[in-house]
């Protein structure tokens, strides 16, 4: 059950998207996310969805796997749709007691849902095709100019990569501990809310202990290898742009131009 969580997980495959420089993917994803919110003419979403579909197909990540990433945010999605539908003023379509649904509300809710879905899928493509290490390398590289104003860029990137690296480890650990306690007759599913919360104790205590133990071991291992922060540190595989990255940037620029053309209704 825990294995179903796909947020921040890497899906190994050999595709063009996987091979792109992580900086390209990071900046392209940011541009994509921004583009979703810049325009609100319905036509742009067709283009945005089409563009995303193309990237997903190129990435060789199964579509079903991609959609699984939407599950955890389903509640947020429904909530946004409902709120937009109920509280947007405009031409009344249907009303009952204090509830009124307007034409504008329905439209607004629909756009919001489409935007959110594209937003989540878009960022999922990035994390599914980029290993956490490469992603944090990219973040460090992109944020490097901030060093001038004394932002500890390297330290932030290191913390992020450690945190990301530990997500699957701790998920595995939780799975193991849950099974071990189930083998001792623990029951996590039945009972009322308080009973269920209490049944978490046998999972959380060992999980915290293990997290601290691992953190300790890691700190020790890093110190044993003379880690002392970012200064003078070089990388085994420095990031280098290849031709495909410039091509990817060109495609993204084309996409943005297309969005602008449709969104600003330049030709009609």
């Amino acid at each position: 059950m825990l294995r179903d969580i796909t947020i921040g997980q890497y899906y190994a495959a050999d595709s063009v998207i996987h091979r792109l420089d992580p900086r390209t993917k990071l900046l392209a994803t940011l541009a994509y996310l921004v583009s979703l919110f810049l325009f609100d003419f319905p036509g742009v979403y067709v283009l945005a969805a089409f563009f995303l579909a193309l990237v997903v197909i190129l990435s060789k990540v199964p579509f079903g796997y991609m959609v699984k990433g939407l599950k955890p945010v389903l509640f947020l999605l429904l909530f946004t749709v409902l709120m937009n539908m109920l509280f947007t003023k405009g031409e009344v379509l249907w009303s009952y007691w204090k509830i009124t649904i307007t034409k504008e509300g329905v439209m607004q809710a629909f756009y919001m849902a489409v935007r959110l879905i594209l937003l989540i899928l878009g960022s999922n493509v990035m994390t599914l095709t980029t290993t956490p290490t490469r992603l944090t390398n990219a973040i460090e590289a992109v944020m490097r100019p901030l060093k001038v104003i004394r932002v500890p860029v390297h330290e932030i990137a290191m913390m992020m990569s450690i945190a990301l690296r530990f997500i699957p480890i701790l998920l595995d650990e939780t799975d193991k501990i849950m099974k071990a306690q189930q083998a001792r007759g623990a029951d996590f599913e039945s009972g009322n809310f308080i009973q269920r919360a209490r049944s978490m104790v046998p999972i959380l205590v060992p999980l915290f202990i293990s997290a601290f133990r691992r953190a300790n071991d890691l700190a020790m291992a890093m110190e044993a290898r003379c880690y002392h922060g970012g200064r003078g540190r070089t990388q085994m595989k420095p990031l280098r742009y290849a031709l495909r990255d410039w091509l990817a940037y060109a495609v993204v620029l084309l996409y943005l131009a297309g969005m602008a053309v449709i969104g600003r209704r330049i030709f009609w």
Partner: protein
Amino acid sequence: MKLIADHLVYEYNRGTNQVVRALDDVSFVIHSGELLGLIGHTGSGKSTLVQHLNALLKPDSGSIYYDGADVFEKTYDRKTLRARVGLVFQYPEHQLFEETVFQEVCFGPHNMGLAQEQVDELAYEAIRRVGLPEEIADQSPFDLSGGQKRRVAIASVLAMKPEILVLDEPTAGLDPRGRDELLSMIVELRRKEGISVVLVSHSMEDVAEYVDRIIVMDKGRIRYDDTPKAVFAQYRALEEMGLAAPQVTYILQDLKAAGIDVNAEGTTLREAKETILAAYARLRGSGK
């Protein structure tokens, strides 16, 4: 009591491009009172297999029958099954969470829904059965030594009075003395109480001395299911699976190859000693 594993198949990462077949058509039987060794290299599927024995994992096909009943049947009481088939995980001391050893050991029987009196009784009994002093009951489990913690974890499973005790790598991370003590405690438990024991290990030395029967797993399949002697006779094939026969087997084989008349089938230290001494006596007797 009889447990039958019937054509188990289990795959990880189904629905992705990294499907791993962890169990591939695995069938065997555990008889009452048996001491069974389950060995295999890392990744051979042995840990996956033991999690099927108490229905923690559901096979993709095949099933487990406990006393004739299919444990993956919808209405089957799997909670009771988990008390009957006690599974001690690898590094079980990592699952401890209670304030005292006593409360820790009570967790299992308590979950079975027994009355407090009965739970107390089972807990004290279990602490005694694993050879821990009773004074330890009121201490925090986190203050104990590694070996003692492991015993507490085993006691917490034993307190549910299982008919089969499954131990996944029970000696991992213990020093040789702690290893021998723990294994002889388990053998003693089985001898006195007649429970079946499944000992999972990647080390031949661990299992050779104690078990009646060995199942060898490789790449999710059962390769051998036989007596230790018969299995270790195949030591060349075992090596190809990343396993090895006990060291004494190699010594005996080498002696035999050197023309000394020993019984090369020995798998335990005691057998090896006897056959080597006998050969030595014969050599001296013949005046060579």
